[in-house]
């Protein structure tokens, strides 16, 4: 039986060039990301090809995903959030399709790599911090000190708030990465049981596998939702400051 972690191995498919001794090339992870971007573009582009007033099935799927994120931004950030809609929508679709395409057998789940999820979380974190400073100037440092607390508590509260603020990209990225990795390892291990137990006892893990696959589909959507809504909440904190 193959190792359940083998599915996360990065393989270089076509080496392109080297930067300072580090080979750069298209890996299976990069290919999966390109595929996700391609599928999202096809889904949105072809869905809106005939933008009808009364939408068909495909067009209403596209409109539903648009309205879902537009409502999320309106509820969590307010009208100021509309400017950031393109970024938040791209983020949601990229993570969602990355998770969902990873559920196809023999494909690669790029969201199961901390390097990928951490870069996305870091972009959100840096962008939110810049937006905060752009909106409030140096007043944004008030984020680190709660209103109404006595001044002498700043010695304790400011480091705590600072660590709390810095922990955002960690929790954002580790959550997505851990959920996807654990789910795929679990599927692989259960699938291994099916093969090992054969025709006689393999039916029980196979039944469990069907259930877990459904659960994984739920988690794929749920994690994309959580990643996006937390980005919205951080954005709201930066614009409105509590």
């Amino acid at each position, binding site marked *: 039986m193959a190792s359940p972690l083998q599915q996360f191995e990065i393989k270089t498919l076509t080496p392109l060039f080297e930067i300072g001794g580090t080979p750069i090339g298209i890996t299976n992870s990069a290919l999966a990301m390109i595929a996700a971007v391609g599928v999202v573009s096809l889904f949105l582009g072809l869905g809106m090809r005939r933008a009808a007033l009364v939408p068909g099935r495909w067009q209403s799927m596209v409109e539903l995903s648009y309205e879902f994120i537009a409502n999320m931004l309106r509820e969590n950030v307010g009208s100021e959030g509309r400017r950031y809609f393109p970024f938040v929508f791209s983020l949601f679709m990229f993570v969602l399709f990355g998770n969902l395409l990873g559920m196809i057998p023999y494909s690669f789940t790029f969201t199961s790599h901390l390097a990928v999820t951490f870069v996305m979380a870091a972009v959100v974190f840096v962008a939110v911090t810049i937006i905060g400073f752009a909106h409030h100037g140096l007043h944004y440092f008030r984020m680190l000190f709660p209103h109404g607390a006595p001044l002498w508590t700043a010695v304790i509260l400011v480091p*705590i*708030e600072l660590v*709390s603020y810095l*922990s955002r990209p960690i*929790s954002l990225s580790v959550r997505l990465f851990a959920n996807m990795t654990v789910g795929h390892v679990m599927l692989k291990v259960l699938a291994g049981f099916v093969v090992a137990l054969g025709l006689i006892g393999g039916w029980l893990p196979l039944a469990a596998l069907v259930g877990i696959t459904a659960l994984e589909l*739920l988690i794929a959507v749920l994690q994309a*939702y*959580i990643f996006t809504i937390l980005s919205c909440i951080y954005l709201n904190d930066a614009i409105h400051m509590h």
Partner: protein
Amino acid sequence: MSEHQPPGSSDFDARLRAAREAQAELSGKKAEARGDRQSSEKIGIGMRIALELVAGVIVGTAIGLGLDYWLGTKPWLMIVFFVVGSAAGFMNVIRTAKAYDRRMAEQKAAEAARRQNEG
């Protein structure tokens, strides 16, 4: 049928009752769907809270280790920032839970207001 009622009104009453029942059934189904969505939201909340705590501790300890390495004060800053990180983790958890509480209360208030308007 009494004389001041126009003909066919009992037929109308029956149809009205049937339509109302159908409507009630439909909104009942909608309420059920809302319940489903809430239960999947709860899975999300649970996952968030567990990680919020760990992330604070990890970041605090990492900052402490980094400062120790930089200033050569092993292991004191690591210990201090471990405590600070734990406090930050707990604060994250409390904040997430409070925000969730507020959202739930708002939802309940909205539901109650809607029911009062209907009833």
